[in-house]
């Protein structure tokens, strides 16, 4: 391996080193804040390496042994992944302070999951694709079941374990079927196979259907979405945040590579099924969210709808769609992180039960005014109200859809967004509803950890509003995805 390759791989190497360092720190002495700091410092260094390459390193494309390619798109993905995972780590510190047993392993699990997502961002070979997806999923099974004295979390963990194993099996089998036809395993060959898939190639067609099913599960697109609300509900809130953001982001970057970076556009048969998946996700996600009283389940359905919107950019060919994907991903990440962050802080330190029922949030404004303001802003951003980042994301996706005359999908997006305003505003209304005299709980004083998490959320809100008002820098950065 040449020095150039090692330098290009530096973010992954640093992340791996951070994981090992955290493990050693745990082995030597269990200290919650210290172990958390080790991971956070490591991830920050990795982020620094990515940022250096993007801004000063010339953004060159480096091929590493055919398994990975570190190009502009990979760096963009790695940057987003690391920023989001740092946010999740911050939430973890406040949240797990209240956990009675071993708290430090969660940083190892999140670090390993992040490494999996980083791998996916650079993957240009089926081997790295599969290992990356497993590395993203396996630690999160441990994460979902982390508080294992509760029946619910064990149930969620087992559900995630079995269903994601089935999805991975479908994905692996799909790759194997395509390999049987084309005899190559690199992503370029796979996406070429997806481009020419037709009815007289049953192997490729069956393989791509199974790959779509596996990837659709990981992105929780309808009809592969049933696990999402249950697992989101069962997991500790910071882990839910990780599942909703980093986990899907990593998979989506590799999906972009599969469907977008080929020499020719995806075959019409697969496009039709993508349109179907997208429409179903948008409508089913929004409709099912309407009746939810549990905030985590509501957000799970809303994330299904959001990834339905995002699937539009897979259908639309061209660099504009890629740019829209980057903008949408960034705005979705900062917003989701904000929403789950507020939920995590309201539930921190971890108690018997997370604050997740909508009643727990009734009148929250009168107890926690700052957190409530952040949550309100984030909810409006999820709904896509102008001047928030969510609006810019939706605008970018609609622009891409209109540019390619995908009227069905754009119509679906508009209908789904209209429905979604109802359930987001329902939460916002609950936040500000008056509480009965004397039943208000006293505001608890914020500890160091909580105020640190609060600081992160404040930054997230500022970034979100900034992107909503002045999206130009994000657009410039997102054109990274189109450089390939």
């Amino acid at each position: 391996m040449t020095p150039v390759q090692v330098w290009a791989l530096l973010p992954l190497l640093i992340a791996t080193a951070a994981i090992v360092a955290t493990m050693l720190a745990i082995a030597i002495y269990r200290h919650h804040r210290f172990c958390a700091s080790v991971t956070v410092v490591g991830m920050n260094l990795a982020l620094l390496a990515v940022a250096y390459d993007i801004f000063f390193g010339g953004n060159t494309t480096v091929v590493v042994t055919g398994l990975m390619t570190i190009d502009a798109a990979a760096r963009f993905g790695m940057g987003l992944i690391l920023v989001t995972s740092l946010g999740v780590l911050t939430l973890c510190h406040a949240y797990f302070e209240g956990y009675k047993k071993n708290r430090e392993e969660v940083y190892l699990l999140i670090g390993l999951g992040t490494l999996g997502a980083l791998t996916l961002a650079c993957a240009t070979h089926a081997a790295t694709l599969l290992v990356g997806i497993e590395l993203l999923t396996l630690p999160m099974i441990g994460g979902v079941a982390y508080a294992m004295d509760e029946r619910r979390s064990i149930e969620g963990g087992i559900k995630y374990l079995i269903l994601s194993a089935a999805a991975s099996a479908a994905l692996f089998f799909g790759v194997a079927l395509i390999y049987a036809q084309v005899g190559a395993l690199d992503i370029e060959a796979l996406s070429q196979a997806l481009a020419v898939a037709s009815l007289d190639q049953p192997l490729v067609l069956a393989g791509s259907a199974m790959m779509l099913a596996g990837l659709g599960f990981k992105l929780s697109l309808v009809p592969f979405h049933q696990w999402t609300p249950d697992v989101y509900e069962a997991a500790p809130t910071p882990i839910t945040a990780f599942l909703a953001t980093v986990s899907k982001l990593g998979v989506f970057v590799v999906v972009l590579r599969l469907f977008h970076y080929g020499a020719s556009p995806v075959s019409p048969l697969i496009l039709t099924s993508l349109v179907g998946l997208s429409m179903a996700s948008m409508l089913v996600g929004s409709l099912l969210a309407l009746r939810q009283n549990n905030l985590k389940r509501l957000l799970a359905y809303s994330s299904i709808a959001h990834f339905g919107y995002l699937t539009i950019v897979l259908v639309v060919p061209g660099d504009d769609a890629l740019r829209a994907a980057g903008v949408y991903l960034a705005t979705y990440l900062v917003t989701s992180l904000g929403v789950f962050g507020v939920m995590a802080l309201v539930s921190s330190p971890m108690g018997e039960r997370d604050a997740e029922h909508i009643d727990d949030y009734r009148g929250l404004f009168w107890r926690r005014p700052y957190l409530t303001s952040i949550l309100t802003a984030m909810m409006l951003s999820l709904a896509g109200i102008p001047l928030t980042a969510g609006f810019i994301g939706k605008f970018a996706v609609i622009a891409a859809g209109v540019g390619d005359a995908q009227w069905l999908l754009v119509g679906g997006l508009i209908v789904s967004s209209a429905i979604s305003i109802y359930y987001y505003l329902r939460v916002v209304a609950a936040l500000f509803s008056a509480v009965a005299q004397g039943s208000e709980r006293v505001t608890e004083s914020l500890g160091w950890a909580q105020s640190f998490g609060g600081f992160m959320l404040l930054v997230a809100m500022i970034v979100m509003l900034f992107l909503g008002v002045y999206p130009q820098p994000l657009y410039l950065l997102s054109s990274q995805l189109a450089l390939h």
Partner: protein
Amino acid sequence: MVEFAFYVASTVALFSTVMVVVNTHPVHALLYLVLSLLSVAMVFFTLGAPFAGALEVIVYAGAIMVLFVFVVMMLNLGRKTVEQERAWLKASGWIGPLVLSLILLVQLVLVLAPMSHLTPAGTQIIDAKTIGIALFGPYLLAVELASTLLLAGLVAAYHLGRHED
């Protein structure tokens, strides 16, 4: 000839896997599971991948199955264990797997016999050396990532399997 062996082994694999699923008795199902793994190993042998076949036997059929059978047996420790085991070992339970694994054995002897000049059904023979070169050449990064995957499994299992006193 080898192609014939390939199809026989695949048929055995399919049949035994179906038997694993439909069998209501856990130990009998496990017997068929071992058989299914052995027949997959046989498929590898016929395709000209002896190393993969050997690994299949050692890792899956050997280690995991022994573990499996142990766990199932341990769950039923008690006074009635002996009679229970006797009941489990009735001929109807093991005769099927026995016959099928004898078929596999005959095939193995035929394919692996040093005197035979049979060419494998696959296009080339992939031996241990080729696999080593592939793993530590082009696939080096995948191997390293797989090691972190194992670490992830280890950490998750450690945390979830821990008994707090």
